[in-house]
């Protein structure tokens, strides 16, 4: 008896698999698609080769003066020469290790918070939030423990951008949460104060806040009393951003079903405990995208301090481009600044996605 043996399956026809089939299905499925595809290819051909040759192939990488930039492409020598200034501003060169050290302290100090097996996250995290700013401030500003004082007017570059952004975020988040709770409070006095605060700060542009803090405020202070410019800007940024955070958090609070509030009350939890243990954890998780959105906007808004003469990354670039020996290098500088900003903002948005994923408890639709 012969066993019936099936012939092996024939492979799918050639025009159904592989890159050709994919291209047919996705790029050339109709005459309109074909037209759009060709147009897109034309655009790529127009943009990519010149871009590549400007940024990489024809670019000048080595040298130390403008005269070394002999090729047609970008002159990255400029970035290389001014790199220290873009990163640290006018922070004295021999003291820059202090900036590096504070960054490393932040990275190492915050690392346990990202290890899921680490047990005492809440206590450690709070402790870190209290200790680190004091430590970082002492390191950066100096003036005691044998460290030379470095006035904030010498801070600049990416370092200043990061200082403003992190202080802004760390200050605005707790303040924003309190404001959101206050706005939903049953106590009229607190509610009125919070609503007024939020609506006031949301109603003015950040640029106005900064401008007022640097141009108007000094006029009302007694002569000779110099309120640190950076501090003024930081306070302005925190107050301004906290109003936005408050509204985002309020959105989260309103999304929590009433049953949760009642359940917490039925358990005998008081106001702070029901908020802290039941409501806020759920609400904050819901509004992670909104909060991160606000913080990304804040990070980019730090470049507005240009208006009050602080030298953040963007302003350092602008200023370096005004150096007579490097005139005409503004494009390279701005491209570099854009790249740095993009790296940080993209990093933040990826982290927020990771956080959402980790905290997801199946409510996502």
């Amino acid at each position, binding site marked *: 008896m012969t066993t019936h043996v099936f012939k092996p399956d024939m492979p799918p026809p050639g025009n159904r698999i592989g890159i050709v089939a994919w291209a047919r299905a996705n790029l050339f499925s109709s005459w309109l698609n074909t037209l759009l595809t060709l147009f897109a290819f034309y655009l790529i051909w127009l943009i990519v080769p010149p871009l590549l040759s400007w940024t990489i192939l024809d670019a000048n990488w080595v040298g130390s003066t403008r005269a070394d930039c002999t090729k047609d492409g970008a002159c990255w020598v400029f970035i290389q020469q001014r790199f220290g200034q873009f990163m640290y501003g006018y922070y004295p060169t021999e003291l820059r290790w202090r900036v590096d050290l504070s960054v490393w302290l932040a990275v190492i100090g915050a690392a346990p918070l990202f290890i899921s097996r680490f047990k005492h996250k809440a206590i450690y995290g709070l402790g870190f939030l209290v200790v680190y700013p004091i430590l970082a401030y002492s390191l950066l500003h100096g003036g005691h423990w044998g460290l030379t004082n470095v006035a904030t007017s010498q801070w600049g570059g990416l370092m200043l951008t990061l200082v403003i952004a992190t202080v802004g975020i760390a200050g605005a988040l707790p303040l924003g949460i309190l404001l959101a709770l206050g706005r939903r409070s049953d106590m009229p006095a607190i509610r009125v104060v919070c609503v007024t605060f939020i609506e006031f700060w949301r109603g003015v542009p950040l640029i106005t806040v900064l401008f007022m803090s640097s141009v108007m405020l000094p*006029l*009302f202070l007694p002569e000779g009393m110099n309120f640190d410019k950076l501090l003024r800007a930081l306070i302005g940024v925190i107050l301004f951003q906290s109003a936005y955070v408050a509204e985002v958090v309020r959105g989260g609070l309103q999304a929590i079903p009433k049953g949760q509030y009642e359940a917490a009350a039925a358990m005998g939890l008081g106001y702070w405990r029901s908020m802290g243990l039941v409501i806020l954890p759920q609400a904050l998780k819901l509004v992670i995208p909104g909060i991160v959105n606000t913080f990304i906007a804040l990070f980019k808004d730090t470049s507005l301090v240009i208006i009050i003469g602080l030298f953040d990354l963007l302003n350092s670039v602008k*200023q370096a481009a005004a150096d007579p020996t490097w005139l005409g290098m503004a494009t390279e500088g701005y491209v570099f600044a854009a790249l740095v900003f993009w790296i940080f903002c993209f990093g933040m948005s990826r982290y927020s996605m990771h956080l959402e994923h980790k905290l997801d408890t199946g409510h996502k639709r």
Partner: protein
Amino acid sequence: MKQLKSTLALATAAIVLSVSGFAHAGATLDGVKKKGFVQCGVSDGLPGFSVPDKNGKILGIDADICRAVAAAVFGDATKVKFSQLNAKERFTALQSGEVDVLSRNTTWTSSRDAGMGMVFAGVTYYDGVGFLVNNKLGVKSAKELDGATICIQAGTTTELNVSDYFRANNLKYTPITFDTSDESAKSLESGRCDVLTSDKSQLYAQRTKLANPNDYVVLPETISKEPLGPVVRKGDEDWFSIVKWTLFAMLNAEEAGITSKNVVAEAKSTKNPDVARLLGADGEYGKDLKLPKDWVVQIVSQVGNYGEVFEKNLGKSTPLAIDRGLNALWNNGGIQYAPPVR
């Protein structure tokens, strides 16, 4: 850079005046001596006038004026701290006492001199609005610019100056305004406009940004007066005199041929009575200004005379390569003239 002339600045100044009283004469000098340094307001980056180098040291003619003041007061040109100010905050910074002297390419005008609680101590640089054109156009004078397309930086008084000039000469033009000087330089290069207009000192800086600077030429006409100089608070005559005479001393030193190289030797051995008075070898002219006897020696030896400072920051040896022009001494074809020390 006349952006600073914005109405906002004026409004701010008006408020300032109503809020803060005037200091008594000599308050600034006392304050400066107590602090141990001169707090000097400079621009936030203007080629040749004040711009930080790689190490953050501020270079430029505006910055050197402040160094000279420090040299006169303390005998040490390094005893100066710089505040980099943008156009909007500069007057507030001076009025509120944040800076002792504002040396920030600020045009001397009647409203600023009389109406804002401050006084100009002199002119460090005679500037004016000019035109930068491509050689190919074959234009030799601004009068031939009828029908030209002109790149202007928005929000500056240059806009006003250009429109006044063209109306007065019955010429037509098409303005294209840009926010930054980099954009306008690119537009001139790409041919979007025939002419680039700005303060002459800045046109030279703009020219170095172009791929082939030698293809472009700055036209001889200057269509507005922009005397730039240091500013101090009103009502403080001692300090005002020190800043004013620091500038005069630098000019007098150049006129007398005193340079940073020979000043020390000249102070000891000069036979010329003018030079002897200037350098403190004869008489006590420093005392009238509440300055040490050798104040001019300190200024010239540490910072240089006016000509040296000009050459170092703006002159032929720099990428800007600006002619002395109006800024030459009066006996050399220019209008820089200083009263004598005696």
